[in-house]
């Protein structure tokens, strides 16, 4: 069984702060991490390998620095990794990213592809399903539990807005996973040693046979027009006086607004 996990290296947005004076992001000292959902995808892959056997390959598309994320994957227990990196990929939107991953996965071959539900920097959740579309395989989003996996099929629980569905699919299939699915293991000492020694194999646009009109900025239908700081809400009031006076003022306001 060939299992491929697609991961992304992202800035730890939980650490990102806004400079209140300039309204810009303070990125200084913000660490790069494996996208948290992708860590659960790696764990899911390792668990599937334990159940059904096979090989786990973790791939990432990103700049050379993303190699670090792949070493962490090896430390967790991945058998193999690939860095899909090329200057030509710069500026890719979700369309071009899915296409690029498709070309890479096609090269490697996969029975099960796992992705995190979304990346915490872009929060789009679009790359996984689009990748499945190019592969012409089914996908199941928001997987929260693996119920069963065999050589030919998989049964999982899919999180919905009002509960969950039990969904069955033949292989090959792509799954995107949510955090409830598992508790990711910590890297083992042996894994850390392997990660240190590993030679990271790089794949370029040419290696994966990606067509230039479909990658990077040129292959991206969407463009960022601009970015700006979220607007603060107007009409703010900090109430004053003793707690009792403050509560009185609040209740009076709520009555005025006919909320009480």
């Amino acid at each position, binding site marked *: 069984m060939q299992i491929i996990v697609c991961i992304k290296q992202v800035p730890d947005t939980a650490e990102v702060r806004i400079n209140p004076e300039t309204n810009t992001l303070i990125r200084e000292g913000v660490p790069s991490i494996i996208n948290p959902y992708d860590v659960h995808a790696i764990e899911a892959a390792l668990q599937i390998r334990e159940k059904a056997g096979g090989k786990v390959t973790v791939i990432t598309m990103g700049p050379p620095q993303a190699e670090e994320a792949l070493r962490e994957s090896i430390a967790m227990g991945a058998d193999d990794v690939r860095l899909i990196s090329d200057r030509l990929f710069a500026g890719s939107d979700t369309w071009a990213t899915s296409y690029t991953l498709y070309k890479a996965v096609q090269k490697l071959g996969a029975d099960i592809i796992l992705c995190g539900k979304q990346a915490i920097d872009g929060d789009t959740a679009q790359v996984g399903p689009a990748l499945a579309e190019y592969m012409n395989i089914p996908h199941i989003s928001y997987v929260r539990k693996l119920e069963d996996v065999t050589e030919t099929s998989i049964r999982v629980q899919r999180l919905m807005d009002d509960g969950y569905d039990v969904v*069955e699919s033949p292989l090959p299939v792509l799954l995107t996973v949510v955090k409830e699915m598992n508790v990711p293991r910590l890297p083992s000492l042996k894994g850390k040693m392997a990660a240190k020694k590993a030679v990271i194999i790089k794949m370029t646009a040419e290696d994966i046979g990606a067509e230039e009109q479909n990658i990077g900025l040129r292959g991206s239908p*969407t463009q960022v027009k601009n970015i700006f700081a979220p607007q603060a809400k107007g009409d703010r009031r900090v109430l004053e006086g003793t707690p009792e006076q403050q509560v009185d003022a609040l209740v009076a306001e709520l009555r005025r607004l006919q909320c009480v």
Partner: protein
Amino acid sequence: MRIVIDAELCTGCEACVNACPFGAMEMKDGKAVINDFCNVCKGCIDVCPVGAISEVADGDEFKPGNDLADYKGVWIFAEQRHGKVAGVAYELLGIGRKLAEERNTTLSAVLFGADDSEAQELIRWGAEKVYHAKDVLFDTFNDEPYSQLMIRLIEQYKPEIVLAGATAIGRSFVPRVAGRIKTGLTADCTQLEIDRETGNLMQIRPAFGGNIMATILCPSYRPQMATVRPRVMKRGEYDASRTGEIIPVNAEGLTCRTRVLASVCEEGTCKINLQDAEIIVSGGRGLGDAKGFELIREVAELVGGVVGSSRAAVDEGWIPYRHQVGQTGKTVCPKIYIACGISGAVQHIVGMSSSDIIIAINKNPDAPIFNVATYGIVGDLYEVLPLLIKKIREARG
């Protein structure tokens, strides 16, 4: 397209380094240089005080892949679950109406599954046409038939704009549609406008955990597709006498390899439903322990609201995850949001800041929650909440 820095002009002030959300600006020998992380978001251009940063065309701009003028009309995808159209569909008709008027075109809904009465309801909420596919295949949600039929309809009727809810269903199958058609798809938009000059759809969405907003365009491909965050757009006007056209859609020849064996509505999720609540009373770390939620529940019951929480309280194990509001929980938009003992980390604020009225109760006057609060009370919640309960009871007589 790429961003270039004029090294002659660059003063090494590092304004761009701080402004770049992708960490693509570095200092080398006292000058700013761009690394591989650049996403051409142009955030650096305006912050440069000396105008040293600009955008150059490389001749690699997107070439139009289809004839844009052939594409007309605004479509919204009306999702249904267990035969009932989801509320987000009516919100999509609200924003869809505005966009259709600005583009001087028609507004249509697409409905897979459900009965005629639900299609009629979409018309009353503002749809002029409803493309309605009725088939047992749509009794449960499977990505493949949904995306295949949507692709078929788009290729046949060529709408200019296609909107869907940023829900479990919408966010799952719509990326397949955009991928197959080769067009842009913008996720989880919170604002949509038409650019008066070009007629393009300006798709505005939060990124980086809500730390920045980005305006996204899809200038050269059609349709322009977006998923829209639920409970952000206002519903359209309901008119029981409005009439429209229902166009039956043939669902033959669709394939479906996945199979839904069971569809379980979880009691907690359905009952609480934070996203439909008009009033939410939320507790955070400031409660001190799980017992604090008893007080929160009392306030919630009194005002007819539901109980929410910050991530901190969930992580402490004081309350189940399904109550969590914020980036990794639910995004809510109630009439009143009462935050008790919640400091207001960005991740929480992005999930509740569009509430009509925000009331914050916190001991710390510098807590960021007060930056978004309509009314702020600085004080101990264990003193303030019992008072609030008493005063509301008094006010009601």
